[in-house]
């Protein structure tokens, strides 16, 4: 019953958001059927589009896993975006150095370095600050996120990583570290099976870690009740640092995978916002690693479908953001609805008792 509800409620929230979005679109003078049609066909219409949707959802899924770990451990890692870019930057730096290494080893090296960089960015300052002086991780991860993104920007805007003689961008990572694309009938979709495999392995690892190991049990215990955890002899400080490290590690992994799989270099912009969207992905999935796949695909589909929506039905880009906003709003509301129902029931019982 409970698990059924945890599936139905987020889905209901999404459907309600889509319905209201439809009314909105209609009120602005567009045909909602065409608009949603172009959204869906843009996301799933052809093999290429499906490829694009999966590609767009991979970073969301991987960052979302990290967020899920931190949420399950009772920590709000808001700074995953910075951890993502630090992971990406580290992976790119290693990607265009050490070119004499064999391809597979160079690839793994980049990924591992990305993961470590992300983990350290989340774990060292926010983790230890939370564990030992109690400064709130919402503030510290957020601030570190800005520092991370601005550092990455500096590095390519006149800093040591800028490609000489070019507009702000880093050199391209070595050819043999780039993930090969899965080109069968998908042409330009930039989908690589290696990235998909990494995401799936990450999901399984997180699920196993959280639900099948002592470590995961301890993490979740800390998340549920710190005092009880301390009473049970769990080293809460250690697990706080560890949870943020793990969380940042997955954000860094996503950055590395995206750089090797899609972007191949740091480009000026840094506007992907995966770290923020992934928070919603994780919330929608109720911090369940398996659910993160579905929620990630859903948001990936919104991204690619949203771009197609603009092209086909000439709807402004901002409307896709509005739609995403509505979904977030209703997912958040989902916690309110049971409370409203509870309040209504109490009132009714109160009335019936006073009438009797």
């Amino acid at each position, binding site marked *: 019953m409970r698990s059924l509800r945890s599936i139905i409620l987020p889905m209901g929230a999404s459907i309600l958001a889509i319905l209201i979005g439809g009314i909105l679109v209609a009120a602005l003078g567009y045909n909602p059927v065409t608009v949603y049609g172009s959204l869906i066909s843009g996301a799933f219409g052809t093999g290429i589009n499906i490829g694009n949707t999966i590609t767009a959802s991979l970073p969301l899924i991987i960052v979302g896993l990290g967020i899920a770990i931190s949420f399950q451990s009772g920590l709000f890692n808001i700074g995953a975006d910075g951890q993502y870019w630090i992971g990406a930057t580290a992976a790119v730096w290693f990607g265009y150095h050490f070119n004499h290494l064999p391809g597979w080893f160079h690839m793994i090296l980049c990924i591992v370095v990305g993961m470590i960089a992300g983990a350290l960015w989340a774990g060292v300052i926010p983790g230890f600050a939370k564990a030992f002086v109690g400064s709130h991780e919402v503030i510290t991860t957020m601030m570190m996120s800005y520092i991370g993104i601005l550092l990455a920007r500096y590095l390519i805007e006149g800093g040591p990583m800028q490609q000489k003689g070019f507009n702000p961008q880093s050199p391209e990572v070595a050819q043999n570290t780039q993930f090969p694309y899965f080109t069968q009938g998908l042409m330009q979709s930039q989908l690589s099976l290696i990235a998909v495999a990494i995401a799936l392995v990450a999901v399984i690892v997180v699920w196993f870690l959280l639900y099948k190991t002592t470590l995961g049990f301890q993490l979740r215990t800390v998340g549920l009740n710190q005092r009880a955890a301390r009473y049970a002899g769990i080293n809460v400080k250690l697990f706080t640092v560890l949870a943020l490290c793990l969380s940042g590690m997955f954000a860094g992994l996503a950055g590395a995978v995206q750089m090797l799989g899609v972007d191949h270099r740091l480009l000026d912009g840094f506007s992907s916002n995966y770290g923020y*969207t992934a928070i919603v992905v994780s919330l929608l999935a109720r911090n369940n690693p398996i659910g993160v796949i579905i929620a990630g695909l859903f948001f990936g589909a919104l991204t690619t479908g949203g771009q197609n929506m603009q092209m086909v039905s*000439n709807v402004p880009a901002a409307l896709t*953001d*509005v739609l995403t*906003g509505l979904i977030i709003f209703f997912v958040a509301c989902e916690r309110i609805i049971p409370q409203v129902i509870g309040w209504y029931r109490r009132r009714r019982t109160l009335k019936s008792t006073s009438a009797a």
Partner: protein
Amino acid sequence: MKKQFVAVAASMFALTAIVTGCGTGAASNNAATNGSNATNSAGTSNSAGTTNGKTIKIGLVTDIGGLNDNGFNHLAYVGMTNAQHQLNGVSTSVVQSQSESDYVPNLSHFAQNGYNLVIAVGYLMEDAVKQVAKEYPKTDFLIIDDNITGIPNVASAIFQSEQAGYLAGVVAGLVQKNHQLKGLNTKNVVGVIGGQDIPPVDTYIAGFQQGFKKEDPSGKVLLQYTNSFSDEALGSQYAQNEISQGADIIFPVAGGCGIGAINAAKSAKVYAIGVDTNQAYLAPGTVITSATKGVDTAVFDTIKAVQNGTFKGGVSTFNLANNGVGIAPLMQGVPQSVQTTVNQIKQQIISGQIKVSTTVQK
């Protein structure tokens, strides 16, 4: 998260708008008619017969700056809209990229759907255009502000903005040297605000410095970079800083950030020079002239070439000679002699008598 919050706020606002719209009935109706008008006009241009008897489809992919950047994305859109209105049989579509990873999917989406010309705005899309253009050799591509060579179906438009900057510098120099505008101080200082230390910005600045020094060798050019193309408050702050150092003509080359600088110049009752497009409308009486960059011309010409079947790959350079760059008409109150000198110098640049360097003096 910030973006999502904004989105939530926007959606709540829109919801209220619907509710009130239903109450009055008129508002939502109006919106609906406007919307359908827009689609109708697009529809008619589709069905309109052409001289060649076929409709060409043009797709525009903006970079992450979006359409309202008051810069090249906007100008490219203007060029495309002009083509749609003035040439028969041109249908257009726009997509605004939200992140760097969208470039390849957006470009290939248009190509895959049989668009004749796909316009990529900005050097950020260089890799993406190279990759996609090879996969879709039948589609023509135009990239703005970047030079890609060796791919037959890719045309690149680059602008010699240093020439426009030079003319703007000449105007500033003349006006400063002879104190030809009301309220100019005697320090002869002009302030330049760059968005970023990158070629599309620096070419303007380099030209401006040389033009200014030619007319007013003892004058001083201040130069600062904001590292933002969007933050108006920051632009305003930088402008105030330069004004406090005595600058009374501000030349911002910083997109939306520069608009803040122009507004600051207006409030401080000093003068400004606009960039990319004629920005006189932002602050009449403050903006002396604007150094313009004909992204719209480039886009329009390329669309026309595609329609006539004369599209050619390779780099096209836009400069003073082909009106690809230039300066906007001077503000009222500027003496005619300035205009005369500018015209002379323009001819000298075109004939090659004056060579403008693209290197910024720091």
